């Protein structure tokens, strides 16, 4: 009898905890990601799908930086893919004309990184705001696989990144 009431008590506590946790989770909102200067055209999208970019931007940047610095392959090949291009379009000036610095929540990169508590040191050296606030990179043109090793297809084949597969999973 004693054991039963203890079991009941612990079950009840767990249920209350679970309820509380679900309420807390429901209240948490994601980071507010600032909009780019221009919404991508529905035909071209952005340079890469959002899901891909969210998961793989660091791989693209890491790979690109070595080719750029060591081999001098710059804008043309990576149109839209370099850190300079990210900043050029995504860290847009606010309505009052103010451009967010990387230390602020309004900064495109920091909006997510401060939320995820992932410290980045890119902007210890790189400029955190666009040199030309009017600049917009061309959309939809940079989908290329590098000649020298990095294969973005490998990353895209990961199940979480395949929207077709994800859709099928959701089917009842």
């Amino acid at each position, binding site marked *: 009898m004693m054991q039963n009431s203890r079991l009941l008590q612990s079950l009840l506590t767990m249920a209350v905890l679970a309820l509380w946790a679900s309420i807390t989770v429901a209240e948490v909102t994601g980071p507010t990601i600032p909009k780019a200067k221009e919404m991508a055209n529905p035909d071209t999208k952005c340079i890469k799908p959002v899901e891909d970019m969210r998961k793989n931007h660091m791989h693209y940047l890491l790979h690109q930086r070595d080719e750029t610095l*060591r081999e001098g392959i710059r804008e043309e090949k990576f149109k839209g893919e370099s850190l300079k291009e990210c900043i050029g379009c995504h860290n847009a000036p606010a309505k009052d004309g103010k451009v967010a610095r990387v230390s602020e929540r309004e900064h495109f990169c920091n909006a997510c990184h401060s939320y995820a508590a992932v410290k980045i040191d890119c902007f210890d050296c790189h400029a955190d705001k666009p040199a030309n606030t009017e600049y917009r990179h061309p959309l939809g043109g940079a989908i290329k696989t590098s*000649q020298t090793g990095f*294969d973005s297809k490998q990353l895209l084949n990961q199940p979480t990144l395949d929207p077709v597969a994800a859709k099928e999973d959701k089917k009842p």
Partner: protein
Amino acid sequence: MSDDTSLNLTRRQFLGTSSALAGLAIAPGVFLTKVAHAGDTEAATDKNRWGMLIDTSKCATGCNECVTACNKENGISGTHGPATDAQWIRKVTLTDKQTGYVQSLPLMCQHCANPPCVDVCPTGASMKRADGIVLVDKHICIGCRYCMMACPYKARSFIHEVLEEQKAVAPRGKGTVESCTMCVQRVDANRGEADKSKHVDPACVEACNASGHKAMWFGDLKDPDSEIATELKKHGGQQLRADLQLNTGVRYQGIT
């Protein structure tokens, strides 16, 4: 997930597959197909060797145009005085004690063919590009400053302080070593521009020409038709500390 996106991704996957096939190598470094564009879509090669020639007889004592232009182009500004401030190019005054003859010259990274800074770097951050430009890969520089010790020209600087307001074309930051890049951003922009009349010189050379002194040339040492190669062939050029056999990319005329 909208249908548009999945369509787009399918296309992307298709592109990925096709380009992976196109990129099949017949041997390491040899590809069946290559992007046809010239310029900065392709890696810099050893077909070029970028260099400078400086005529010290035309370089005016007291003129600082090249230094100012370099600082402006690459976003270099002072923090705590000359002992620690970064210096990519500096003016040096030489005085002959016997005759009293004074001459002035700009001194920067000499872009050696056999750079001692690259030899001593423990991480591979100090590197020479295929086209002869010596750079620091700040992504992997640990700030040990061995290269600064090794450089006979004292051409490199260490960044002691947190920096802000860097230029997009010249990333610089605390804890890394840096030096003249021969305005590599301009060199690469030139590679992407077929029209030679639109090619731009490094900031220092541009400023020297604009000031009317015209003491500096920039160009391809390997191109026999380039202005710098012609001038070198005609009048010769001296390496600083030629005894070290570093085969410098920056040459001087008129040092006595």
